[in-house]
């Protein structure tokens, strides 16, 4: 009852404070101008991760001053009042400090989440989406934890110093000169500058784009990709190499990218009937700048069909088989044989091994063949497994013999394997990335100090004379 009374009173007082009102006005204006400038600028669409990162950066670099003032002024600004008016009444000091914490965290985090939601929606609607729900959650959650840490440290200093100017000055010093301190502690990734630098990477979908399908006619080629591409790179005809079996190259005159269908149509070609082509996409990136996965950047054995007879389907016009790594979903003769294709459900990694879990029972000889796995850590750097052991009870394969760098995500792509029922693995569910380690480090690195700051505040305030 006492805590609720303190909490609601504090909440109302915060909502009526001019600091908060001023901040909301400044925040709304800044968001509006930033989003309109970033998203409505002429030219190609801005990656959504960059737009959201800009909003989140604001809370770490600019609005952090307001958050520091809100935290550092919480107790010290009222030090002459709280003794007479509140703490001489039936409430404990723990209730008082925890109500301060809760109300400030609620208000600041709510404002932060609303801003993130608005920026995220605008970025998704008007920008080039290069994020996934998980990366958005990790990015917004990480900065949210940093905001909570900022507030907690501010309240702690407010309790310790009992002087608002001192508390604000100490907090500003701590926050803006934090990098060397974090570096010294071996936790550079937690410093504000490091967080700002890493945000686009955190927000961006870590999966590289893949060439999943390729079909040919005598005058054009249609390449289908797994995700949205950067049109500037996708519409460069020079980025596609089309080779015949004898090494003859067929340059395309134009490349037209269809964002909706995720495909590129190369036209202006004169391709000989029945020729087996190898098509390679190079320097093509997704909207976030990730280049094509090395394992899935080319399609082999693309057969140029005979000219179609009007009213009939031309035989052999099915998509050519893309790179061996990624069997094409639409063209694979096996893909619809026995219901839904198996997929990689998850993967977890240690410094030396990777465990891959499949959705169903698999053919053991295939999944125990280490050549059927492409393991990347970090992105683009491949590692070869020495051994693979399958457990059919859990549908898991344990790949061993790696030496991964610490804290880097591990991505596994599986090819050429079939379920026990004979269904080939799908092209969209054949990979998984393990990056949880970094996320947990952020959660612990930012969350634990927040809790620590809270307990220090409570302990310090309990022994203070009023």
């Amino acid at each position, binding site marked *: *009852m006492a805590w609720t009374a303190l909490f609601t009173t504090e909440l109302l007082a915060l909502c*009526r404070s001019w600091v908060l009102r001023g901040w909301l006005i400044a925040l709304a204006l800044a968001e509006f101008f930033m989003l309109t400038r970033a998203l409505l600028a002429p030219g190609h669409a801005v990656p959504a991760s960059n737009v959201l990162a800009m909003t989140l950066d604001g809370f770490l670099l600019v609005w952090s001053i307001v958050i520091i003032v809100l935290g550092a002024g919480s107790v010290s600004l009222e030090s002459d009042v709280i*003794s007479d008016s509140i703490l001489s009444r039936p409430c404990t*000091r*723990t209730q008082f400090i925890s109500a301060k914490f809760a109300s400030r965290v609620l208000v600041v985090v709510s404002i932060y989440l609303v801003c993130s939601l608005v920026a995220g929606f605008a970025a998704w609607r008007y920008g080039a989406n290069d994020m996934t729900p998980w990366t958005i959650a990790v990015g917004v959650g990480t900065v949210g934890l940093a905001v909570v840490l900022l507030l907690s440290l501010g309240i702690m200093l407010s309790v310790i110093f009992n002087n608002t100017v001192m508390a604000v000055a100490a907090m500003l010093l701590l926050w803006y000169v934090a990098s060397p301190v974090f570096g010294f502690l071996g936790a550079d990734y937690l410093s504000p500058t490091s967080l700002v630098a890493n945000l686009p990477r955190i927000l961006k979908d870590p999966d590289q784009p893949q060439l999943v399908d390729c079909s040919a006619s005598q005058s054009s080629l249609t390449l289908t990709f797994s995700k949205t591409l950067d049109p500037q790179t996708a519409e460069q005809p020079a980025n596609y190499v089309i080779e015949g079996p004898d090494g003859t190259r067929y340059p395309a005159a134009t490349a037209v990218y269809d964002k909706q269908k995720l495909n590129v149509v190369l036209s202006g070609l004169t391709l000989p009937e029945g020729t087996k082509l190898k098509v390679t996409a190079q320097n093509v990136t997704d909207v976030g700048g990730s280049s094509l996965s090395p394992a899935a950047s080319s399609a082999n054995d693309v057969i140029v069909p005979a000219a179609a007879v009007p009213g009939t389907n031309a035989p052999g016009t099915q998509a050519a088989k893309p790179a061996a790594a990624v069997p094409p979903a639409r063209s694979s003769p096996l893909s619809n044989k026995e219901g839904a294709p198996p997929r990689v459900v998850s993967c977890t990694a240690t410094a030396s091994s990777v465990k891959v879990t499949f959705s169903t029972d698999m053919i053991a000889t295939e999944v125990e063949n280490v050549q059927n796995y492409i393991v990347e850590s970090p992105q683009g750097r491949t590692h070869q497994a020495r051994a693979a052991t399958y457990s059919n009870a859990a549908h898991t394969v344990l790949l061993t013999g790696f030496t991964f760098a610490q804290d880097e995500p591990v991505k596994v792509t599986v090819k050429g394997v079939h379920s026990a029922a004979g269904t080939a693995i799908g092209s969209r569910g054949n990979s998984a990335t393990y990056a949880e380690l970094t996320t947990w480090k952020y959660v612990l690195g930012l969350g634990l100090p927040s809790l620590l700051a809270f307990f220090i505040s409570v302990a310090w305030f309990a022994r203070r004379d*009023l």
Partner: protein
Amino acid sequence: MALLETHNLTKIYGNKMIAVNGINLSIEKGWVFGLLGPNGAGKTTLVKLLLGLQKPTAGTAHLFGKRVTPNSADIRSRIGYLPTNPKFPPTMTPITYLDLLGRLFGMSREERMPRLSGLIRAVDLLPAAARAIKSFSTGMTTRLGIAASLMNDPDLLIWDEPTAGLDPAGRKYTLDLLRELGKTKTIIVSSHILTDIDRVCDHVGILHQGKMIFGGSVREMKETIGRNNVDLEIDGSPEQSDELCRRLDSLPEVIGFDGIGTGRGHPIYRVHARTDGGCVPASAGGRSIGWLLSRFRRPGGAR
């Protein structure tokens, strides 16, 4: 059992200043107890120790049979506290502040709304009930403090210098209210004004430099106070004066002494003794150190 008991209650600030010095106090239910002492005697510190707002350096305080700590919310729920020159949240109004107090005391809306309305009317703050406290005069703030201290209908009232900064009418109103409340409640009221204490209290404790130099009924105080204090006017060198101070300090019957000024160019010391102050000059052995007792008198009395 006494409603309030302290045992060797001591407060030293930062190993520098002794604010409260080994106070043993016992207050029974129904007393109107006056804490009397000059400014800086330790009255407010003692009150804050009793409320758990400050932690004692040594000793203990028990209220309602429970030891007082900073988290003694249950003890404070039975106390009505009026601080000296109270400060309240400046943006709140009397209604919102008293409503908050009612919620802190665990009162339901049906209980607290009639209660706060009645108190605001009683302390004559009705026209200012919706005004921000920051616009209040000292008298209005004190009246709000009085209302706040009565919000929970407490068993014990602790009013610290309730007449400080009030005009004569406000002072009379406050003292009359204290006398009225004293009929039904236990009250501790601190003041440096003897007449205020005399008007409302039946028991009194005199604080001087953090020590309780007297505790008893008001009648006993009146009898003792004149007899125990003596003023010594010294005709001697500064070194001799310093020597006198050292000797007075070492005398067990002397509670304390202050330089209260000069008379005819000679320093005058007021000595507070435990018993009759008349024996102090002889105990200090003045002649043996060469100082001359120029004048000896009881404060306000004859030589």
